[in-house]
């Protein structure tokens, strides 16, 4: 699989939440690989485990969740085996995270500039206060926050939602990370601001040569900026493809369902087709392929055996018994 340089590779990852009601098998054998310099889109419905997978990369699964098994290989190193202090040095410096809700993520008691500065101070020793502050101002400028010199001294509650998201982005790029994980970066801001945020992100990606993982349920966004896409359903990746072929000819029945459920401009289409059924209960997930209760092509084997993610044509992977190839 290593045609190009792989920056991140997740192998056979399992994450379970041990709740009062039972064990929630949130992540069930995820395999994915992200290439250096690309923009990888991770799509799926709310609650399918996209964010949990990404948090597992940073080893920040909130209790009562635990990574049960698997490997997360970043630049050739298995992150799950690193000592905590080494892991901390990677968070925010090598792998940066842009959160969904910047309003809740920024500490209300500190100025926004300070919160960017402390990220720098956490990863660099022997830097002067003054030079850090200058860097913060220039970071604010680079994420297009107007009047940066004044804004750095303001508290998060004095910012608008879109501006707060820019502060979070400034935090994320402060250490020039190799991998940027953007978890639904535009859901909490309104549409006009969404476009601006995306512009900022794309610009940064070009100038800083970063790899980016975009976690979203918005397929339009994926089509707009991603190179490759992984589709997730109920804790596993069901299909991986480059963005053109995915939209042209989706393979997995779930992906097809997803694409039929959004309006399409180029096709004449009169009705949107929802996927029948609901997301499965992850405490007692359906046996075999987790999608089979909602799948119209389901056969006997789907109820018994969980399909593996297999490459069925160059660069295209799908986990479905329909494409067994034999």
């Amino acid at each position, binding site marked *: 699989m290593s045609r190009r340089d792989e920056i991140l590779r997740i192998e056979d990852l399992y994450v379970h939440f041990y709740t009062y009601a039972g064990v929630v098998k949130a992540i069930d054998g995820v395999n994915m690989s992200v290439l250096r310099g690309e923009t990888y889109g991770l799509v799926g419905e709310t609650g399918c485990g996209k964010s949990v997978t990404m948090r597992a990369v*940073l080893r*920040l699964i*909130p209790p009562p969740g635990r990574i049960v098994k698997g490997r997360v290989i970043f630049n050739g190193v298995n992150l799950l085996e690193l000592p905590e202090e080494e892991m*901390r*040095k*990677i*968070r*925010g*410096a090598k792998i940066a*995270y842009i*959160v969904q*809700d910047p309003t*809740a*993520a*920024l*500490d*209300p*008691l*500190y100025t926004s500039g300070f919160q960017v500065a*402390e*990220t720098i101070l*956490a*990863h660099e020793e022997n830097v002067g206060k003054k030079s850090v502050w200058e860097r913060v101002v220039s970071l604010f400028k680079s994420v297009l926050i107007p009047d940066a010199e004044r804004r750095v001294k303001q*508290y998060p*509650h004095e910012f608008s939602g879109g501006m707060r998201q820019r502060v*979070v982005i400034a*935090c994320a790029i402060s250490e020039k990370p190799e991998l940027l994980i953007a978890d639904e970066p535009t859901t909490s801001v309104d549409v006009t601001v969404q476009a601006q945020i995306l512009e900022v992100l794309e610009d940064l990606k070009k100038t800083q040569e970063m790899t980016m993982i975009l976690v979203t349920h918005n397929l339009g966004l994926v089509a707009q900026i991603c190179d490759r896409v992984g589709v997730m359903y109920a804790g596993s990746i069901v299909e991986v493809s480059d963005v053109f072929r995915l939209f042209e000819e989706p393979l997995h029945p779930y992906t097809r369902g997803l694409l039929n459920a959004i309006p399409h401009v180029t096709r004449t289409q009169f009705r949107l087709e929802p996927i029948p059924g609901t997301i499965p209960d992850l405490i007692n997930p359906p046996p075999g392929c987790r999608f089979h209760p909602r799948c119209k092509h389901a056969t006997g084997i789907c109820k018994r055996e969980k399909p593996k993610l297999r490459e069925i044509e160059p660069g295209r992977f799908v986990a479905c018994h329909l494409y067994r190839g034999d």
Partner: protein
Amino acid sequence: MAELKYYLIRRVITFLPTVVGMLFLVFLVSHIVPGDPARLWAGPEKAVKPEVLEKIRRQYYLDKPWYVAFCYYMRDVFTGNWGKSPVTNRKIIDDIKTYFPATAELAIVSELLIIAVGVPFGIVSALKRDSIIDHVARVFSLIGTSLPIFLTAIFFQYVFYFKLRLVPLGGRGVKPEVVRTGLYILDSLLCGDWHALLENLKTIILPALALSMLGMGIVTRITRSSMLDALGSDFVDYAKMKGLPNRWVIYRHALKNALVPVVTVLGLQFGGLLSGAVITETVFARPGVGRYAVQAAYSLDYPAIIGVTLLIGLVYIFANLVVDILYAWIDPRVRL
């Protein structure tokens, strides 16, 4: 910082109506009573001469309409004319001046004890959730909030004075060489009278402990739950994502946010301490305003009870003002 100044000015302005409202409430309670207020103010003697009642009516403006009487009453309160005790025939304000330092000292020491025990206990209990220490903290706070102060006070007195003879029975302690503030502990520190300092500490420790049990219980519980909230919040999560060292995450982000509600509770506790002092001082025979009020209640010295009520109310809202200022200092959102 400019906004902080404006906030303070605004806060002081909104503070005034509360003071007036409070005075009005006290006025209501003391003037609109069933029967004849003059008779009540005249004291416990059954047969009071009509000319004495007449004099009291004039003195407390009972012959005027209530709104006029209230205006006079406010003027009197602010000019320090808080009435005269019919029992001792002394001015209430003078009595309060004599007795207040003992109460203030007790309340301050108790507040410090609450902060010193409740806050760290709550933090540790949140950080080590479901450990032994957490369970101990929970039981401690439950018992603390259920113990009536008189029981705690009596129990401490019985064990540490009658049985162990470790500390004095109570009282006011030893007067230091130079008295400047009236708070004996502070005074003996200031003039370096170590013997008096030790004696005063020994005198105050039991009443202060008994008085602070309730507050310790409440503060431990509030600190624990607000620390848990902060530890589970998105900004703490995000601070970890930024790769901040654990120490920064806990003390800089979680703790500071957790302290915001704790400060409010600490302020509210101060009022509770003043009312608890009424009981503690009675058990330990400490000559403060609380014991003064109880003696007044037993001898039906009505003006004295009202005077103490007024004093405690004023100190209480002043404590709340201080809390609001602290609040604004910690939390920038409040200043707007």
